[in-house]
């Protein structure tokens, strides 16, 4: 936003962003389009786009300002495409994230202002792979996603599948994509179609964006693969030539900025796909079957809490949340699944708080902050103590997946059933074998 004084100056001259204006500055006359003001830089600086395309910032003190002509910012182009009856029908559900982002002058960053139709204009290849039904659901940043969006997405997926979509692509901000993927994996019952989440690490307003290849590949998985699971389709490595389909409940974002940030943890990717669309299956998965069971959404979700323990961590946090009525905790323990339990450091021991929680009918699940490997309730005495206190050890499940699962279980089942199901594999989130070559891949 421009400062109040500056805004008044604009108002007096009836100047709006996009107008061509003239500024007398240091004895020069500058002419250009007034750009909207981002939150970056000084509020007293006028952002002017010169004819050569460069923006400059001009301090409004000691200048003269005049409007030359009004101009509205151009609209972005749209695509026109005609469905091809020979191609499979798929749906793209648009939820936001960098994949459809454009420069936003208000927040001076990439933000979700592009309509999906614009994306088809930039990626005409999509029209050759499938007939695409676009569902612009919402435009929410990854970090702002809640279970309410998970529920809405699930319902949209079911609707689209029951309307004849062969597969579904969901565009999503990458940061919490693996949470959403897990939620969908649990919420979508009788799933018999590929559900592919995809996003981008570089915004699609740049020519190097990974959005193009990611979306093309996700559409190919939805249109051509026989995978009946929820997965994430992103780059296999930093190069633009191979994508992976990673099981949603086993996927995790492992890098802040690289395009190959998503990795399969304690699992192998289900499939890879080349730039030309060749799919290679890499591990076992649930296949599309010739059944006619109708997919339904079981969307109940009760927010619980995911806590990371660490040296000096304060276990009172458990009490705090219990007072707020929280009925479940997933702990990201150290190593094999520890919390501090020593009586010598009474104030630091989590044991009494956990015991109290369990006694009050709260479910406590244990995962590991190592991410790789499996928690164990027997190896050390301190682990056995936690087990005896009623902690449920969640095998090789990722903390985020366990969080989503327990929240979903508590909303849809009674506590006893939820406890029982938490440590049982439902959709591939727990594997009973830990394989040698599934580490750091």
């Amino acid at each position, binding site marked *: 936003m421009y400062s109040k004084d500056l805004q008044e100056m604009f108002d007096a001259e009836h100047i709006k962003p996009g107008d061509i204006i003239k500024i007398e500055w240091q004895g*020069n006359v500058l002419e250009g389009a007034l750009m909207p003001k981002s939150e970056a830089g000084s509020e007293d600086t006028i952002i002017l*786009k010169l004819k*050569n*395309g460069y923006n400059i910032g001009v301090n409004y003190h000691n200048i003269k300002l005049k409007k030359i002509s009004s101009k509205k910012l151009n*609209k972005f182009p749209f695509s026109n495409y005609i469905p091809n009856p020979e191609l499979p029908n798929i749906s793209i559900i648009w939820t936001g994230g960098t994949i459809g982002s454009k*420069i936003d002058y208000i927040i001076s*960053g990439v933000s979700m202002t592009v309509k999906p139709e614009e994306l088809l204009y930039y990626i005409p290849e999509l029209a050759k792979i499938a007939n695409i039904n676009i569902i612009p659901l919402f435009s929410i940043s990854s970090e702002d996603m809640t279970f309410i969006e998970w529920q809405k997405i699930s319902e949209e997926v079911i609707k689209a599948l029951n309307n004849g979509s062969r597969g579904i692509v969901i565009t999503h901000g990458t940061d919490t994509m693996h949470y959403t993927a897990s939620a969908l994996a649990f919420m979508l019952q009788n799933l018999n179609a590929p559900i592919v989440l995809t996003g981008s690490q570089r915004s699609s307003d740049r020519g*190097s964006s990974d959005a193009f290849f990611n979306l093309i590949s996700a559409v190919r998985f939805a249109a051509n693969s026989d995978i009946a699971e929820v997965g994430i389709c992103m780059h296999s490595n930093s190069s633009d030539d191979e994508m992976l389909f990673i099981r949603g409940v086993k996927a995790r974002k492992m890098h802040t*900025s690289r395009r190959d940030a998503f990795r399969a943890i304690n699992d192998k990717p289900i499939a890879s796909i080349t730039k030309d669309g060749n799919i290679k299956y890499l591990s076992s998965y649930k296949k599309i079957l010739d059944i006619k069971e109708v997919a339904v959404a079981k969307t109940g979700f009760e927010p619980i809490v995911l806590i990371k323990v660490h040296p000096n961590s304060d276990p009172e946090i458990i009490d705090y949340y219990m007072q707020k009525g929280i009925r479940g905790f997933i702990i990201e323990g150290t190593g094999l699944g520890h919390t501090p339990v020593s009586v010598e450091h009474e104030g630091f021991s989590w044991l009494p708080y956990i015991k109290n929680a369990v006694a009050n009918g709260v479910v406590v699940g244990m995962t590991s902050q190592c991410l790789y490997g499996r928690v164990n309730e027997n190896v050390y005495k301190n682990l056995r103590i936690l087990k005896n206190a009623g902690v449920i050890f969640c095998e090789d499940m990722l903390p985020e997946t366990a969080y989503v699962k327990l929240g979903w279980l508590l909303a849809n089942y009674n506590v006893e059933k939820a406890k029982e199901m938490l440590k049982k594999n439902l959709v591939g989130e727990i594997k009973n074998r830990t394989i040698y070559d599934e580490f750091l891949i």
Partner: protein
Amino acid sequence: MDYNKNNNKIDNINNTNKQDIEDSDYYKKIGFRCGLEIHQRLATSEKLFCHCTTSNPSDSIIGKVTRYQRAVAGELGNVDRSAEFEELKNRRFLYNVHDKLTCLVDIDEEPPHEMNIEALKVTLEISQAFNMKIIDELQPMRKEVVDGSDPSAFQRTTLVALDGKLKVSTQSIGITSIFLEEESSAIVSENENEIVYDPSRLGIPLIEIDTDPDIKTPNAAKEIALAIGNILRVSGKVQRGIGTIRQDVNVSIAEGSRVEMKGFQELDTMDTFIKNEILRQQKLLEIKDELKARNAKVYEAKDLTKLFKNTKVKIILDQLSKNGIVMGFKLSGFKNLLGKEVNPNRRLGTEISDYVKMAKINGLIHSDENLSAYGFDDNELFTIKKELEIDDKNDSFILIAGSKNNVAKASMLAVERARQALIGVPLETRGVANTELCTTKFLRPLPSGSRMYPETDAKPIIITKEMLDEAARNAPDIEKMKERLYKELSNKNIADQLLTSNKLVLYLNIIKESKADSDFVANILMQKFVELKRGGFDVDNINIINIIDLFKIYKKDEITKQAVEELLKILSKRKESIDISKLIKENKLERIKSKELDNLIEKVSKEINSKDIEKLRSIIMSKYRLNIAGDELNIKLKSIKK
């Protein structure tokens, strides 16, 4: 390039134009407009938007990544045409990832860090030297470039200052703007499907200085480029060597169009390139007038593949055997104009052919050429002409063969370029076609403002009064530098030469780092270097760090003056950088001095059983010329006598 020789060439094909082309009235009359864009790499220790070092001779490649790029819309929603054009080529880009010279920022896997303040300071200082008006708040921008030279598909660039002045002997010229931007990657290898880039230099800060388009003559352009280069060198904060400074020239004439010429390595021929561009625009305008008089028209391309079933034309046969196609189109009223020369050894047909290459097609066949030389027979030509409805007296045609996709694109481009001939001179960015003939070829359409959009990952920078004052204090000043050199050097001639030489930065660095004797350093750089180059030693190629090390060691009396020269010879033959101390040992170039020298004199004296100074000097120097300083030996020998 011999200037006169080239002039003759122009005159040969430009018989209508006998005026003295040096006459500035002449340039005024033809509406000559010309401006320069000087790009100079700054000598900062780190890159502009990350903390990678800008030079590390012992770096290694640790990986390769593959990328593809697309043209996307700019801030105002228009896709830039030059970007779109590049995408047509649809090539794969490979980047060598380095250990020390690249990080994730360079390969587009991490957002930029903050702008390098050292680079900004140098840019402000240079801006002050041209009396520029510095922008209150800098707005880093992205300039879309999808030729792969930047893995992010844009170059970060910031307009820093506007409206300065520069005076040279013949005229005063406005400095329109100064930008601070990132260097692009270097091409390692290239074919029609892929380009391998080395991003190690990517992101090195680059200053761009643009002049107003008011340069009056081609010669003045050269003079102004030299003067700007001088100021940059006097700053002492710019890189030296091949490729570290580049001059782009914008040229147009009345009725013509702005054309940007890129990629000159030498200033010497800049004026000839400009003269050739004037000529090219004049010829294209003549062609336009002629086409207009003939009521010419360019038709859409047709698939003619079926006409070539029994062809003996080798280049078409080759394509058909690979399932290729042939397309052709009619150019009514173009007869003999495709073959008309517009520049030495370049015809209108060549100009159209440049466009076709954008679609991965090597060239085209046009009817102003000797078609029987290609292997066309009369029958074949008859059917082609019939199919395209060619009137032999007035019309021409163009044929393009290749893979289906490429030919379709290439034909579209060729038709577009041919139609431009009816309008005049297309707006183009052109690169060097032939360094000998000083001719250029089409690279891409001239970029528009729509390739610019804000770099939202980098924050705007407010320029404070303190920054401006500091920059004004440190601004490069040629007069001050002259004074300094006159003070430091006993030979004024050498000082004058050094002032306008590209060795100035190196000299300043050596003096600063090594504190070696300035006369000796200047002599080596200004005289020895020339001598050595004539002797076949490519001393310009030696890494700057090595040269500085050499003088540091010399300053510590560890080597002699003769050894410095010897080491320069050795270094000029080595591609990779090396530890100088090691090199000295390997080549036994350590200086023999003090006690050691006493012992040597004593030893030789005993061996020959003589204390004759001349004899001793001659024997010792013949064996240890490179290891002994002559003046020290003289003193020692004199003391023997005593």
